[in-house]
């Protein structure tokens, strides 16, 4: 109590100090600001471009990138292609999510299911999905199918593994308690096992989303006629570094958006967790 009182008494005059020293405070605050260094880097980049130190064919100036971004938005070029890319991610992720969840449930909830599925999934894990691209092209051609298939195939595993581990990690004492109250096996799965595995499932979902975007970038290198990858490939041919940077920005935004989406879902469905209660 007394400490707080002394503190507020000594800090009161500090607020009323003359301007000269508040300038010094501003500088002190600036050199500690985390947003300053990226801004300085941007400024240096812009300066380099303006003075011709960084030629536009190497890297476009930030201001040019902004102008290009605006132009691409207004012309509809960016929204239409973004929509195509978004559709690929959504389709691939939907398939991967459905298959991964299905396999995770079967392997997690039944011993025979575990024996049948888990070894195959572990084998699958050792194959880098990107390495399957040639095979997928042979199987599915060069249209939309191999792109969606790559994303789907890659996202199955994180979903499967985390859901399976989450189900197996559910506190057996809670299951015992539910059994002692006469819940049927199906009710136990619904009320105890699945909610208990939900946090792990969300971890898997978050991994799956970031993997989906990485795979999108790779898949769109396959002869795309629309989408962000198509924009980038075209821009490369014309040495339009500004368009390439715009697309990189959009990829980054997609990643942020995906992460934010999972966070929102988690917050809504895991409200019981103490960390979230405190927040």
């Amino acid at each position, binding site marked *: 109590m007394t400490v707080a009182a002394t503190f507020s008494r000594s800090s009161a005059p500090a607020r009323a100090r003359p301007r000269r020293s508040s300038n010094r405070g501003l500088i002190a605050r600036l050199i500690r600001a985390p947003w300053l260094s990226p801004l300085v880097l941007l400024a240096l980049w812009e300066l380099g471009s303006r003075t011709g130190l960084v030629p536009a064919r190497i890297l476009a100036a930030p201001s040019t990138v902004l102008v290009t971004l605006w132009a691409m938005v207004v012309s509809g070029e960016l929204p239409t292609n973004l929509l195509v890319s978004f559709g690929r991610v959504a389709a691939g992720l939907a398939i991967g999510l459905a298959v991964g969840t299905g396999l995770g449930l079967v392997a997690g909830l039944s011993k025979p299911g575990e024996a049948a599925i888990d070894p195959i999934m572990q084998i699958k894990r050792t194959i880098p999905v990107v390495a399957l691209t040639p095979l997928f092209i042979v199987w599915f051609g060069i249209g939309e199918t191999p792109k969606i298939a790559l994303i789907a195939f890659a996202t199955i595993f994180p979903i499967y593994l985390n859901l399976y581990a989450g189900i197996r990690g559910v506190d057996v004492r809670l299951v015992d308690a*539910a059994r002692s*109250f006469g819940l049927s096996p199906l009710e136990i799965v619904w009320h105890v096992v699945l909610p208990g595995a939900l946090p792990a499932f969300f971890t898997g979902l978050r991994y799956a989303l970031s993997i989906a975007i990485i795979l999108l970038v790779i898949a769109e290198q396959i002869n795309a006629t629309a989408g962000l990858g198509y924009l980038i490939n075209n821009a490369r041919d014309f040495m339009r570094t500004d368009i390439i940077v715009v697309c990189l920005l959009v990829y980054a935004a997609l990643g942020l958006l995906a992460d934010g989406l999972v966070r929102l879902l988690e917050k809504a469905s895991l*409200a019981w967790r103490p960390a979230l209660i405190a927040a």
Partner: protein
Amino acid sequence: MNAIFDSRRFGQLTPVSREAIADSLQAPPPPAVRLRGFTRSFGDNAIIENLDLDIAPGEFVSLLGRSGSGKTTLLRTLAGLDRADDQDVTIPPARAVVFQDSRLLPWKRVWQNVALGLRGKDVRARAETALREVGLAHRLDAWPLTLSGGEAQRAALARALVREPQLLLMDEPFAALDALTRLRVHDLVLRLWSVHRPSILLVTHDVDEAIALSDRILVLDKGRIVAEERLTAPRGERAALAGDLREKLLGFLGTGRIGDDDDLAAVFDDKPNIPFSPSTPF
């Protein structure tokens, strides 16, 4: 079935003088729990051997025993968690368990935990009534992880009682509570028992707790019942006999003195220099 319900209603009408009435009864009602020659073993290791146990309807029985004496195994059987198909075991259909840790589902609000698995109408209203009975009416919509230890155990008690069990099993439910909270929950359990009249089997380490609460105390050791004490004095007036009984029961439990414990004695037998060795007990 009928006999059990009759005796429960009978008990509800006169909660205080139940012991006296039980004594005056000519033919005792059929027991709520009946075990004959019950044996459970894991591999060659017999946890419980040839155990006979009766618990009368509405009777409050405490089960004392050291760790590894088979208490938990017995409780799991009575709870129906371990199957005992080929054995002579009779347990009532309506059972409920209160565990040492409350085992509330953290992802369900308190009232939903109490309502877990309830069937029929007015589930929320029944859960509310049960929670009001244990003094948690203000915590209906709380998340279990925000409850204190005492609150969580009271919620677990409500979750058990809302099922109107004929047999209430309690596995050291007060062990994790602080002393003051424990006394309060003791009172609460006795009050709820006198209203609902389930048979109770309380598994505990605590001799004083068993003396304060129960009609009958059993001591389990190495899978056998080695002592049985019936308490007839009213619960408020047991302080006088507590001392002697306590010593007696502790004797059966093996007081924790190293000389009384075969396993520990063997450890210390060849180490006479250790001050706690059996040759120089405390």
